[in-house]
């Protein structure tokens, strides 16, 4: 029941973000939406994900957005205009997704295919094969360790690209741009 309420709250926050006229408000509300999602993840027994979403979504991501906003200021308030073609595309896409959820296995049922196959193996074998209690860590670092290697490479790639874009004092870039 709490999760339903939170979910409703999340949807309302999303609408508030799209309707906000001021980007600062939008950024702060996005941080809030991450926090709500983190609570939802916790309610859905995903402690690691909740932890990460709180630290990244509500923390780092919001911070970076604020810093970027500071760098690009001043920003004029957005006119509240509806872009109809985009709205139609989005409604079509949303309709397709809603249609797609109709045959999803029931929410939270232990008999769902997701819980029968690979997922079950992890829960049953982690103790014997890996020997750590946190199954998420076992899957993350070992069973699907290569994904996590890829994830580290993604972080490295983004860091490198950002550094090359804005990593030196702005004065130097302006001299270069003006050349």
């Amino acid at each position: 029941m709490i999760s339903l309420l939170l979910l409703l709250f999340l949807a309302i926050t999303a609408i508030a973000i799209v309707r906000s006229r001021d980007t600062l408000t939008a950024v702060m509300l996005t941080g809030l939406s991450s926090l709500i999602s983190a609570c939802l993840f916790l309610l859905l027994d995903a402690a690691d994900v909740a932890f990460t979403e709180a630290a990244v979504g509500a923390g780092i991501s919001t911070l970076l957005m604020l810093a970027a906003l500071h760098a690009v200021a001043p920003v004029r308030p957005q006119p509240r205009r509806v872009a109809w073609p985009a709205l139609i595309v989005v409604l079509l896409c949303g309709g397709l997704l809603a249609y797609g959820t109709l045959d999803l296995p029931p929410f939270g049922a232990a008999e769902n295919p997701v819980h029968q196959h690979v997922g079950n193996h992890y829960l049953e074998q982690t103790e014997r094969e890996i020997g750590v209690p946190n199954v998420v860590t076992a899957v993350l670092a070992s069973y699907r360790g290569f994904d996590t290697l890829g994830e580290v490479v993604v972080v490295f790639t983004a860091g490198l690209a950002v550094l090359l874009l804005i990593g030196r004092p702005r004065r130097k870039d302006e001299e270069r741009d003006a050349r």
Partner: protein
Amino acid sequence: MKSHLILSIVAKFLIPLVLLFAFYVQFHGDFGPGGGFQAGVIFAAAVILHLLVFGHAATEHFIPTAVLKIGAALGVLIYAGVGVASLLAGGRYLDYDVLADNAVAGQHLGILLVEAGVGITVAAVMILLAYSFQQRGHDA
């Protein structure tokens, strides 16, 4: 950035605690929620707090950009290197079983090392991001 006395005292008190928490999260990931990624982010958060309160020059003095660049690369090298080590030890890529005498000990060692790689790269990159964006203030 102007230094506010209360802010800087609170920060000086808080930052070591947050750093400590980051290490706890790093090494406790086997047992509870957490791991290299979360630890890296929390570590970075402590440094970013320092950055916000004491300014770029003071923070850069403790953690120079050059070190962070090496750190970001080092984490990837550690993780991918563990994979190469398991190849050399006769296993498949990232097969930690062969890293120690028995499979479970090997898994423990492997997970410890790769989580360290994750933590180092994530922390370094997040701090680098904060440095980069902070330098771009509009009135800079």
